[in-house]
């Protein structure tokens, strides 16, 4: 048994990588990527909404993303996910969203994009141009010293109900439930459970998360 150069054996079920997906979908260039036109060439800055034409991206692409209400200039590869772009390429990095599964299984990277809940590990950064991206860092009022940040009511409720243990899943739960409560301020326990059904927590903080969320939901219903 041996592997092909560039392709170590991955077993019976090879894990598709983003690169494979892009290679398959790209028609213009082997290592490039076809996206709705916003970038006409390498290093081209583009923030305007799509015109519907298709364009090939390759190499490092300069993009501007709107994150928590501020524009952020980044250099990404066409395959770079929104999660990796913010965690690994932004300066300063936004590491509140966590890389846990990298395939949409765990919810630890949950963000809100144009009012929709998304897993940032399943979104390409170049597709996020012109969209409003909200991360956990944007929920509290200060990006400065940690303990002086003004927390959102839900974040404060998480603190008061001991809804975070190791904390690695916390950002994702906070985002998922924030999104739920923005749409339905008087959410029920079932609503809350459904809202974070895609979020994994290994410490088992869910009972306290539900309490934290319900405390706010009831407040909203007053």
């Amino acid at each position: 048994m041996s592997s092909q150069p560039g392709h170590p054996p991955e077993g019976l079920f090879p894990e598709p990588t983003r690169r494979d997906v892009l290679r398959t979908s790209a028609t213009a260039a082997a290592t490039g990527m076809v996206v709705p036109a916003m970038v006409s060439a390498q290093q081209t800055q583009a923030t305007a909404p799509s015109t519907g034409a298709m364009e090939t991206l390759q190499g490092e692409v300069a993009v501007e993303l709107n994150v928590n209400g501020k524009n952020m200039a980044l250099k990404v590869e066409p395959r770079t996910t929104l999660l990796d772009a913010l965690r690994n390429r932004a300066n300063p990095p936004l590491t509140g969203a966590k890389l846990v599964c990298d395939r949409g299984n765990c919810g630890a990277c949950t963000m809100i994009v144009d009012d929709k809940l998304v897993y940032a590990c399943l979104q390409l950064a170049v597709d996020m141009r012109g969209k409003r991206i909200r991360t956990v860092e944007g929920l509290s009022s200060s990006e400065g010293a940690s303990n002086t940040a003004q927390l959102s009511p839900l974040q404060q409720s998480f603190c008061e109900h001991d809804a975070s243990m190791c904390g690695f899943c916390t950002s994702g739960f906070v985002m998922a439930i924030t999104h739920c409560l923005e749409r339905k301020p008087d959410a029920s326990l079932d609503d809350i459970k459904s809202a974070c059904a895609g979020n994994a927590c290994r410490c088992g903080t869910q009972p306290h998360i539900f309490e934290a969320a319900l405390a706010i939901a009831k407040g909203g219903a007053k």
Partner: protein
Amino acid sequence: MTYPSGPQDNAPKQSKTKKVKTTKVVNGIEQEVEIEVEDVAGPEWGPRAALKVLDKELIRVDAPVKVSGRAVYTHDVRVPGMAWARLLLAPQPATKITKLDFSACSKVPGYLGHVVIEAEETRWLGQPVAAVAGATSEAAEDALRAIVLEYEALPFVLDRDSALKPDAPKVSRRGNQSKPQTRGDEAKAKAAIEAAPHKASGTYSVPVVHHACLETHGAVVDWRGGEEATVYCSSQHTFGFAGDAAKTLDLKSSAVTGIVEHMGGGFGSKFGFGQEGDAAAKLSKLLQRPVHLMLTRKDEFLMGGNRSGSHLELAGGMDANGALVGFTARAHKQGGIGDGSLSGLPYIYKCAEAWTEVSGVRTNMDSSRAMRAPGHPQASFATESLLDELAYAAGLDLVAVRKANLEDKVWHRQLDRVAKEIGWFEHPHRTQPGNAKAELCTGIGFAISRWGGGGGPACEVEVAIERDGSVTSSVGSQDLGTGVRTYVAAIPAEELGLPLSAVVARIGSTRLGNANGSGGSVTTASLAPAVKDAAYNARRAFAEVLAPLLGCAAAEVQFADGGVQTSAPGGKRLTWKQACAALPEAGLRAKGVWAAHLQGNGIHGAQAAKVEVDTLTGRVRVLHMVCMQDVGLCLNRAATRSQINGGMVQALGYALLEERVVDTALGLQLNPCLEDYKLPHSLEIPKMTVILDDEDTRGVIGVSEAPIVPGGAAIANAIHNACGARIRSLPCTPDKVLIALGKVS
């Protein structure tokens, strides 16, 4: 490993005071008087009712940074010039490597370098072979894919039956089975079972399951070619990896700082630097720049640790009163290339004649690691299942049978309480299981746990009071999400009469005082007494400074409600800030070490589970779980409840969902990802009730392990109680329920 469960000390603690002579000025004349003060022989927690901070619902001091995404974990560390690294893992359970070629890597833009970890032979699936580094995470991934690995696939075994065949391929030089350890007299035990009026026997099995920490294993090694390095590691032991990193980097261990500021779960899997940490250090040394190497989720499943599985053949005999009179067990532990772990059998319950034979069966998978109460959930599931089968055979109440085999009355009280809480006494079938005639059947099950939870001398804590009134409590220990950081601040706050917010905790660095690793629930009972001692010493030293100001003896200085005062009626009172202004420029620093009398050992727990079984689909829904647990002095009731909830949630996963699935012929793990390895999610979480056993008057005791133990057995027993489906193999998946009901074969 088993731990003695000491009886709780229910005797009221004598308040420790003693009479001391001091001088007092009465009418302008100095007189020698005798006053009563707290015994200065050492710190005491004091009566529970008098506590102002501890034993309360505290907001964790690190909660704000965690809920706002600002807590920096090892995975989040970003330092200038940092390279990104990935591991190449062996794709088969056993290989002889014939070619390992990195020449294509150099064509990858951003490729920086590689190190070889194993060039010749691999003995387990997922064993690391090499590590590569790139300027970006994408470049590292490309470079990984550019490595050419050729190998001869060697014969392997991945399951117990194959491993025990006479002609099985040898997993290691030690063979495929460890030497059986036996206890008791087999003939006597068998005779006791034979003579018993009620008998039961069965083969029970539990799967290999994963820690599945959300933060994977890994490290960031920040060395840039100088004399010193900083190493960040997702570890349960801050002091457990800097030395290894120093060796690899060729530095003095004192020149390497280990940092564990926040960490995303360990559950027993994160001790030492690991092969991933070592690879990061080697790459850093090679490249003379910082290296970030965190395992991918798939890597984590293959090499990040697991709880050993077990195969247990049990038999037992019970007398008419419910006493377990005879017990035999032949057990195989399945810990991959390691030997696995299994607690003593029968688990907790006494038995006059018991015989056990336990050995490990090795396979070509990664070695099991300690996982929250190693060996206990396995033993609990088999023992509690057999006990239920015997109880039903004898037609006895499930709670009464348990009590009949437990001398320690703490468990009696706990079982009665959880039974009441879950609705046992109104439950229709308490001596016979329900039948599956109804579409939805409800059942209740019970199980108990024990653990040590005591500590030992290891931690060196410093409490510092500054002239501006700030207070810092420092120790190198780590917080796995258990709440360590919070009690490191809360204990001095209690001692100094301050609110929790007045004390800053500093932890997670080898530049701070020594601390032991967090495993086996030893942290709290090792660390909290040392924090208490440091706070006590700080208070006593501060009292010496303040006595002249307050015009009293040091022993009369009281710290309460954010200020200091004399115990004499009408005496002076200073605010905390005023008092601290009396300190010298350098402030005041006091050290503390462990004191045995401030902690306890030997905890008890009982759990009950109520389930609903859909007899058409086999689906099991847990409706309610109840845990009663003694913890000695509870430092933070909210965090303790979280810890116990967490144990029950993990036990629910063990009972219903979790299992490492391997293809024994092809040599693969089929579910190395979080969509196929199912953790309990919000829709599976039942109503949960935690009852802290406040009759326990002992000092602090660790509570991490015990709550994960009984839940799996309680749920499996509840399924049987609901509909008569006895499932002897975890997890209790719908297919097994339907097979047990005879609806499918």
